[in-house]
C-alpha cells in the first residue's frame, strides 16, 4: 500500500513538473510562433526546404549560438566574414539573399528557435490533434437535428393522441348512445386546414423575407479561380503570415490580391508541389505542380533558363468579397488600428483550400460587430482624446469602450 502511494505521489509530482516545463516552453513557443510567421515563414518551413532550407535541426547544424544569431540578424555580414558553412549554403541556394532582421532581439530569436524545436517533434503526416472545432460544429448541427427530430416526434405524438382521443370519444359516445356525426377526415377538418395554412404562411413569409433580404448577398460564394491556389497549403501548412501577401491590409482600403512578383519570391525556388493530395470541391484531384506552372506562364518565367523570357499576362482572379459601391470599408482601420484577426471576417482561412465567402457582409453583420467589439482604447494613443471615457474607466463606471460608443455605428463612418 505504502509503495503504491509513494509511486502515485512521485507520478503526480513528475507529471506536474513535466506540465510546468512543457507549459513554460509553450509560452515561449507561443511568441516564437508569431515571430516565426511574421518573419520567417515566407521563406522557411520547419520540415521542408523552401526558398531557404528547412529549419528543423538548425541548432544542431549551427551549434555556435552567437553565430546563428548574427546570421539571422545580418546574414550579409556573416557571409562577408567568410564562414564556410554559410557560404556553402548560400551557393547551394543559388545565392538567394536572405532578408536582414536587425531588429530581432536575442530573446526573440531564441523564441523562434524554441518554436522550431517544438515543431520538430510534430512530424508532418502524423496527424496532430483532431480538429476540436469541427467536432463542436458537428455537435451544434447535431443539436439542431436532435431538436428537429424531437419536435417532429412530439408533433406526431400529439397528433396521435388527438386521434386516439377522438376515437375514444367516439367509442364512448357510441356506447352511451349519443348520436355520432359522420366523422370528418382531418384533411377536411377546417381547424386543421386553417392551422396548416397559418403555418405555411408563416414559414413561406419567413423564407420570402429572408430571400428578399439576401438579394445581392452571396455568403458561401465559392467561385472557381483561374489558378487553384490553396490558402490551406500556404497559410495553414506552411504558416505564411497573411500580411506577407496581403500587405495592403495594413496600409489602406484594400487588402489586395498580391501581385505575381510576390508569388515568385518563393516560387522561383519551389517548382513543384509534394504535399498532401488536394481535391477540388467536385472531388477531382488537383495537380499542384501544374498549378505552380501557371504562375510561370503568367509571369513569363522560364524555369529552364531561370529568367523572365516571355510576355507576362496578369491573372484574372474572381472577386469573392464584393461590397456595394456606397460602402467605404478600410482594411487598415480594422487590421492595423483595430487589430482584428483576419479570421473574424474571412473565417478559418488557413483551413480553406478554395476560399469561400464566410460572412454575409450584410450591414446588420457589420453593425453587430461594431456593437460588440471593444476598441484598443488604452493601447492606442489616438483615443487619449476621449477624456470623458478615460475618467469613467478610472471611476469604474465604464469597463470598456465599444466601437459603437465612439460613434462606430453612425452613417458617415462607412457611407460617404
Amino acid at each position, binding site marked *: 500500500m505504502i509503495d503504491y502511494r509513494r509511486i502515485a505521489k512521485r507520478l503526480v509530482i513528475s507529471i506536474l513538473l513535466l506540465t510546468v516545463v512543457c507549459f513554460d516552453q509553450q509560452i515561449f513557443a507561443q511568441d516564437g510562433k508569431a515571430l516565426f510567421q511574421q518573419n520567417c515563414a515566407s521563406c522557411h518551413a520547419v520540415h521542408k526546404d523552401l526558398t531557404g532550407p528547412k529549419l528543423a535541426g538548425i541548432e544542431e547544424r549551427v551549434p555556435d549560438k552567437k553565430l546563428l544569431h548574427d546570421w539571422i540578424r545580418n546574414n550579409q555580414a556573416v557571409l562577408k566574414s567568410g564562414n564556410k558553412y554559410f557560404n556553402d549554403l548560400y551557393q547551394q541556394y543559388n545565392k538567394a539573399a536572405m532578408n536582414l532582421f536587425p531588429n530581432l532581439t536575442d530573446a526573440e530569436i531564441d523564441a523562434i528557435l524554441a518554436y522550431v524545436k517544438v515543431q520538430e517533434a510534430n512530424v508532418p503526416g502524423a496527424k496532430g490533434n483532431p480538429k476540436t472545432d469541427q467536432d463542436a460544429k458537428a455537435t451544434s448541427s447535431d443539436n439542431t437535428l436532435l431538436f428537429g427530430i424531437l419536435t417532429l416526434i412530439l408533433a406526431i405524438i400529439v397528433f396521435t393522441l388527438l386521434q386516439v382521443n377522438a376515437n375514444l370519444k367516439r367509442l364512448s359516445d357510441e356506447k352511451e348512445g349519443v348520436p355520432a356525426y359522420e366523422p370528418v377526415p382531418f384533411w377536411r377538418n377546417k381547424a386543421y386546414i386553417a392551422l396548416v395554412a397559418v403555418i405555411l404562411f408563416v414559414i413561406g413569409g419567413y423564407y420570402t423575407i429572408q430571400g428578399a433580404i439576401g438579394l445581392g448577398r452571396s455568403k458561401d460564394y465559392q467561385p472557381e479561380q483561374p489558378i487553384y491556389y490553396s490558402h490551406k497549403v500556404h497559410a495553414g501548412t506552411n504558416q505564411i503570415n497573411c500580411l506577407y501577401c496581403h500587405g495592403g491590409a495594413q*496600409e489602406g482600403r484594400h487588402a489586395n490580391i498580391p501581385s505575381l512578383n510576390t508569388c515568385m519570391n518563393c516560387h522561383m525556388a519551389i517548382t513543384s508541389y509534394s504535399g498532401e493530395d488536394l481535391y477540388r470541391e467536385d472531388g477531382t484531384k488537383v495537380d499542384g505542380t501544374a498549378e505552380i506552372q501557371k504562375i510561370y506562364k503568367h509571369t513569363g518565367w522560364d524555369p529552364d533558363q531561370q529568367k523572365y523570357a516571355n510576355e507576362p499576362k496578369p491573372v484574372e482572379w474572381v472577386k469573392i468579397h464584393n461590397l456595394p459601391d456606397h460602402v467605404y470599408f478600410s482594411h487598415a482601420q480594422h487590421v492595423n488600428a483595430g487589430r482584428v484577426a483576419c479570421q473574424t471576417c474571412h473565417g478559418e482561412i488557413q483551413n480553406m483550400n478554395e476560399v469561400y465567402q464566410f460572412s454575409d457582409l450584410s450591414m446588420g453583420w457589420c453593425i453587430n460587430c461594431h456593437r460588440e467589439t471593444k476598441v484598443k482604447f488604452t493601447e492606442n494613443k489616438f483615443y487619449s482624446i476621449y477624456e470623458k471615457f478615460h475618467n469613467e474607466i478610472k471611476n469604474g463606471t465604464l469597463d470598456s469602450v465599444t466601437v459603437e460608443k*465612439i460613434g462606430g455605428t453612425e452613417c458617415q463612418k462607412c457611407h460617404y
Partner: protein
Amino acid sequence: MEQKKYWQSFGELNNSEAFQKGAQDEFKEDLPFENFDAQSLDAKTPRRDFLKYVGFSTAAAAVAASCEMPVKKAIPFVNRPADVVPGVANYYATTYLSGGDAIPVLAKVRDGRPIKIEGNELSTWTKGGTTAQVQASVLDLYDTARLRFPMADGKEVSTFEAFDKMVGTALSGLGGAPVVLLTSTVNSPSGKQVISEFLAKYPGSRHVQYDAISYSGLLLANEASYGQRAIPSYQFDKAKVIVNLGADFLGTWLNPVEFQRGYTQGRKVDPANPAMSKHYQFESMMSMTGANADERFTHRPSETGVVAAALLSAVNGQSVTGINGDKLRKGIEKAAKDLVANKGNALVVSGSNDVSVQIIVNAINEAVGANGTTINWGVTHRNKAGIDAEMATLVNDMNNGSIGAVILYDVNPAYDYFDAEKFKSGLKKVRVSVSLNEKMDETTELCKYVLPANHYLESWGDAEHKSGYISLVQPTIAPLFKTRQWQETLLKWSGNTASYMDYHKNFWTSKLGSEDTFLKALQDGVIEPTTPAAGSASYNGGAVAAASAAVGAGGTAKRAGYELVIYQKAGLADGRHANNPWLQEMPDPITRATWDNYVMMSPHLGKELFKIDLKNNTQSDKYEAFPEKPVVKLKVGNKEVEMPVLLIPGMQNETMAIAVGYGRSEKVGKAAANVGKNAYQFASSNGTTVIFHANANVEATGTTYKIATTQTHSSYEGRHEVVKEMTLAEYIKNPKKVLEARAKELEPWGGLENYAKDGTIYPVFDKPGIKWGMSIDMNACYGCGACVVACTAENNVSVVGKSEVLRAHDMHWLRIDRYFAGDAYDPESIQTVFQPMLCQHCDNAPCENVCPVAATNHSSEGLNQMTYNRCIGTRYCANNCPYKVRRFNWADYTGADSFKNNQDEANDVILMMNDDLTRMVLNPDVTVRSRGVIEKCSFCVQRLQEGKLKAKKEDRPLVDSDARTACQQACAADAIVFGNVNNSQSAVSKTRHDNMNRLFYSLEQIHVLPNVNYLAKVRNTDVVSAHVEHQEPGHESHQQAPKEPAAH
C-alpha cells in the same frame, strides 16, 4: 450697424414681390405633375393596374437580379511598383503650367490616375495656395476634346518618326527663309536651352513670346524707368497703403496666389494689435479686387493716365488738376496723402498695358519710397515676358511672306490677338505652319502640321515663375494619347537624339551637382534660394514728363459717349481653359453668372438704355426675376456684337465691361462651344502696346437672352445678420462691439454662455472625442472661387450645364455669397462682402428633424451626416435649411444610375462629364450620387476619416495637419481654418479664442448651433456704408432711424 442693409439682388433690396415669392419657395419650379388630379382616374393606366404592374415588375426584377449576380474580376499587377499600393493615394510634386504661369503643386495620384491638385507647401511664395484654374487643371487632362494623335493636313500620321520626317523635310526645304518659334512666355531653364539649340540649327530663325493678356506696358515702362525689361516682386505684405489703378491682383493680375497671400498679411486683424492696410482702388469696372478695397473710386477707362498723373502730382505736393468729379479728385488727394504719410510702406500698382501710365506709376512708387521696400527688384517675375511690338512685327512679316515656317506652342493668336484677322491672313502666307497646341483651337485649325503636346501632368519640365525660384515638373501619368511634349519635339527637330527626360535630368544633375540632389529636388518639387534676395533698382525719371504729356495730364478730359473695358474673369481668365466645365460653372465673384460672358454696365446706364429703374419694384423684378436679360448692340469701330446685359452696381456710369475667354470655336470642346462672344476683338493697339479698352456705342435691341446666374437662387427668407461687419476705427474703439451685440440678442435665452442649453427644449448631446469646427475669416475672403472648384474636384460635385443652372439646379456644395451695400446708382458708395456659405453642420439642425427616413442625422463628432442610399428625395431637408446649402439631384448628372432615362434631359456638358475618359477624374473615396437624392457639404468626411486612421496607425492623437478640408487647402489667403474644437491647442480653437470679439455665427438667433463660425469683416474705412435703401415692412426699426422719404 442695425441700419446697414445688405442685398444679394435688387429684389432683395426692394423686397419686391418676386423676391418674397422666391424666398417662400425653396425650389423655383412646380413639381412636374401636370394635370395630375384631373387625369389620374381616367388615365390609360388606372391606379390599380399601375400597382399591379409595379408589383409584378418588382418581383420580376428581384427574380432576375437574384439569378444573375455579376461576376467581378480582380486583376492584380504582374509586378507591382514598390511605391504603389492599390487604394492608397500617392502625391507627386510637380508644377501647374499655363501660359507662363507656373504654380508649384502636388498631384494626388490614386491607382495611377491624377485626381486632385493641391498646392505645394514647400514653395515659399505660394505656401500651398492655389487658384481656381490650378484646381480645375486636372480636369483638362481628361478633356475629351484633346487632340489624340499627330496630324498633317488634317489626317492622322501614324508615328512620330513619320511626322518628324515630314516636318524635317518641310523645314529643310525653306531655302533659308526664317523659322519662327511662337510661344507663350517660356521661363523653363532647360526649355530655353532646348529652344536655343533649335534656333542654332536653323540660322536666321527667332523665338517670339506672345501673351494674350499682355504685360508689355509694364515691361517697357520698367525698362524706361529702371533699365530692366522685367517685372519686380510686389510685397503686399509690407504695404500699409495700397493704391491700385485697376489691377485685379487678387484675381487675375500677374501672380494672384502670391499677392493674395501677401495682401492677407495686411488684412487679417491681429486682436492684440489691431491694424490693417488701407486699400484704395481707382477703376472703371467692378473688379473682384475693387470689391475688396476699403475705398473705391471710379473713372472712365480712358482717364486712367490722367488719374495716375494726378496722383503723381498730388504725391509730389502739387495740386490735382484735370479730374472730372469731386469724389474722384478728393479720393486722389486722400490716397496721395496716405501714401506720403506711409512712405516706405506704400505701394501703387496698375493693371494698365499703356507704357506711359506704368511710367507714371513707377514715378509715384519712387516718390513714396516703394522701390526696395514694397517693390523688390531682387526677385523678378518671369511669367510674363511677351512684347507686343515683337508680335506685331512678326504678324507684318508673315503678311509680307518673309517667314518660312512658324511653330506655335501654347498660343492661340487666331482667337486672342487683337487683330486676329491679320494674323490669320499672315498664317496662310507662311509655307510651313506647325502647331504643338494640346487642342484643336482656332489657330491649330489653320496649321498644316499638328503635333499635340502633353498635358503638364504627363510631362517633364521645369519653370522659373520668379527669378531664382525653380519648380520642377514630373509626369504623374503616362501620356493618355499619342502626344509628345514640345521640348522633346524641338530636341528631335534640332537633331538631338536624347529624350527630353534624360536631357532634363542631365541638365539639372549638372546644375545641382549630383543625381541625389536632383532626385531630392524632384521629390520636393521646388528649388529655392536659402535667403530670399531683396533689392532695389536704380531709378531714372527721365521718361515721366513725356509720359505725362502722352496721357494728357492736366488738360480736362472730354467726357462723352460710352467706353468699354475688356477684363478677365476670376474663373476663365484669358480663356485658355474655356473647355473646362468646372471653371465655366463656377459663378463669377461679382455677377454670380455662369456659362456666359455679357456686358456689365451700371444701373445708371441700364436706366438710360432700357428704362429699368432698379428702385422700382415692378421694373427690377422684370429685369431680375427671370433669366431673360436685355440684349444690346455694341459697336466698337467697325466691329459690332449683340450681347446680353447685366446691371452691376459699382460700375462707372458710362463704362461697360466684357470678359475675354468666351466665344470659342466648336472644335475647342463641347463646354466652350456656343458660350458667349469673343471680346478680344475689341482690343486695339496704340502703336506700342495692346490696349484693352475702347470707345463704344451701344443701343438696346429690344430682344432678350437667358443668362444663368446663381445670384437669386438662395435667399435667407428675409432673415438678418447673415453677415456682420464694422470699421477698423469702430473695432479699435470698442473691440467687443460684435460680441456685445450677440450677448444682447441672446440674453433672453441664457446669454452667450448658456444659449446652447437654454435656447432649446431638445436635449444637448455631448461630443466626447472630436468635434469638428470651421472658422472663416471674412477679412481674408476675396471671392476668388478656388475653394469652390477644389470642393467640386474633391467631392465629385456634378456639373449641370447652363440649361440646368437656369432652372436653379446648380449643385455646388460651397458657394460664395456676394452682398452689396450702398446706393445702386452711386458706384462709389457700393461696398461688397463675400461670404463662403456651406453646410454649417448645425448641432441643432433643422434639416435632421424633418427627414422622414433619417437619411440625414448627426454624428458624435458634430457632423451633419447625409446618407445617400437612405435618401428618398422628399427634399423636406432642403426646404427647412435656413442656409440653403442642400442640393437635389434632379437628374442623373454623373451617370451613376443604371437607368438610361434618368439622363433624358442631360445637355451636352453633362454628357461630356459622363464620358469614360472624363469620369477618370472622379474621387473613388466619395460616392457618385444618383438621381433623386439630396447632397451637401460633408466637411470632406473622407479626409477626416483618413486623417483619423493615419493618427491611429501612428499611435498618436490627431493633429491639425491630419485632416484638412479641400476648401481650406485651396485657399491662398488662409481664410478657412478647420480642426477639432475639443482640442484647445488646435488652430480652430485658437482662432476662435483669440478672435472672440469678431466671432459670430450666421443666423445665430434661430438656435441651430452651427459648427461653422465667421469672423466679422473689418473695413479700414471711415464709415461702413450707412445708406439705408429700404426698411422692410414688419421689421421694426430700432431707435430713431432717420426717416426716409417715401420715394418708392
